[in-house]
């Protein structure tokens, strides 16, 4: 799913001269999820990452196991970052923060909101960490019982 999603946006990234990489740990178990919906989540996040990362930047999609058998997917970029004030509000529909820089970019901001809803429908969690002009990282975690050995 991670590679497929990265492949979906790789054209857009290369056109913008943004490097995009996927790093999936070896021996990852399979997940019991709606594959199309999780791909939608990843594509949305990757799309936004590419969109807000200037030329020469790097977007990374990683997947790895973490504590208690949870699966963590992360999309990080070296983009503009999200101001602290609006960080919590980006998960609400039609809200991309009041930053004119963000507002100028295309899209109406449904992507992140839909992503959160879809993750939560899978009993997962989604977090964002961001630093202005350094980059943003979205982390999506699925519970252990979603894994299949």
């Amino acid at each position, binding site marked *: 799913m991670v590679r497929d999603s990265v492949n979906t946006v790789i054209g857009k990234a290369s056109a913008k001269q943004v490097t995009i990489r996927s790093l999936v740990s070896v021996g990852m178990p*399979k*997940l*019991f*999820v709606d594959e199309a919906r999780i791909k939608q989540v990843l594509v949305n996040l990757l799309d936004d990452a590419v969109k807000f990362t200037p030329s020469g930047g790097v977007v990374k999609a990683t997947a790895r196991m973490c504590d208690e058998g949870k699966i963590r997917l992360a999309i990080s970029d070296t983009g503009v970052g999200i101001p602290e004030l609006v960080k919590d509000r980006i998960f609400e*529909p039609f809200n991309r923060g009041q930053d004119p820089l963000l507002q100028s970019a295309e899209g109406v901001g449904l992507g992140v909101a*839909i992503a959160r*809803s*879809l993750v939560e429908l899978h009993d997962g969690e989604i977090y964002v960490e961001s630093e202005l002009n350094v980059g943003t990282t979205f982390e999506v975690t699925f519970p252990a019982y979603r894994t*299949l050995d």
Partner: protein
Amino acid sequence: MAHADAIDADLDERSSKTVQTLKRFLVIFLPALLLTLPISIYLTYNHAETATNTLRKDEFVTVARGSGTVGASLRDAVGDIRYLGAFIERVLKEPETDPSKTSLLADSFRLFADTQGVYHQVRFIDTEGYEKVRVNFDGKSSTVSPLSALQFKGNRYYVQAGLDLKPGQVYVSRFDLNVEHGIVEKVRQPTVRLAAPVTDGAGTRTGLAVLNVEGQDIIDLFKTATLEAEKRITLVDQFGFILNGEDKEKEWAFMFGRYELSLKELYPRAWARIEQEGAGQFEDAAGIWTFQTVYPFEGGLSIKERSDIVPAGYNWKIISLIPHSDLVAYQWRTVSASVFVSIILLLVLTSGCWLLARSHIAVVQHGESLEKKVSERTVEMRMLNQDLNKARLKAVEGSQAKSQFLSNMSHELRTPLNAIAGFSDILAGEMLGPLGSDVYKGYAKDIGTSAKHLTSIIQDLIDVSQIETDSLVLHETEAEV
């Protein structure tokens, strides 16, 4: 206006509350009053009755005490006059000269007056009514009246009555005031005169022995014995003339010709009953009469002697009249305390019943207002529930309409957008031949990009709406990370 109406309503409510309280008060108070009033009236009446009975009894005792002191007051005098009469007879029989006999009599009279101490005058009066020997006693010492001071007493009733007596008989005058020279003495001197005839041994009447008994002593004794009833007790003679009493105008009135001031004239019916019954107690319009008849010679003579020697029926009466006004005042004095307590208790009862009624009404009204509030709240809640139900139905309907609208729109929009995207790809790819200008080709590409973007936005909108209406269904399968 609304404000005024509210005030009116408030007033109405208050007045109705007062009326309710009043009704409740009467419901509690009237039975309590019906229960307590007869009891307290009965007790008060009983109290007054007992007081009256006590008063009656006490009056009887007082009258009896008076009669005890007065009853025997002339007991010794009868014997004394008889002795005096016999003594004069004995002296006159002696063949001595007249002056020496007179001086012997005078000396003996003085001795007699001094030793007895109760006779103001000791006299010998001749058959013509002239005083022959007279000794006056002022309570301390006696004096012999000189010849010049001797008076004619033939016109006095007791002299006339005394001269009519048979030998051995005694005349007792009525109890009246002393008269000198035909005039009542200025300093009233109550007196009873006893007279006994004197004969010469052959049966011829020679004169009259007369003793004046000091009446003030009798009256003083009477007054002391009846002091507690002094305002209502009187001593009267057998004709109803008042000898002693509270009203000084009526006292001795017969001596001054005012016979109308006798009990016989003032209270003829009561007097008739007193005369007839002798002793007793009765009540009439004037008040309560208590009376007893006393015979002043009692104890001194046997009954037979009395009827032979002294005037028949000679008596005095001790009479007390408790006027109704006094009786009522006395009863009131006795019951006033209990009446006062009754009134206080009645006031306490009244206020207690009022408080009880008020708290009862308050409780009832509070209950009513609670019920009213509960029913009002129930109605309110029902209406709220109805509103909520309506709102819920509307919301469900709205949500369904929104989902229906979105799915319709997405279908209606995606179909033409797909066509636009597809045809713009064909144009941009110059599948049916070159467009002739690269600008056109660029436009065709832009159209395609825009159409795809629009499609993705629509897809996002559908997703959002599905998520919000919980109608998004996951198709979970195994998937490689």
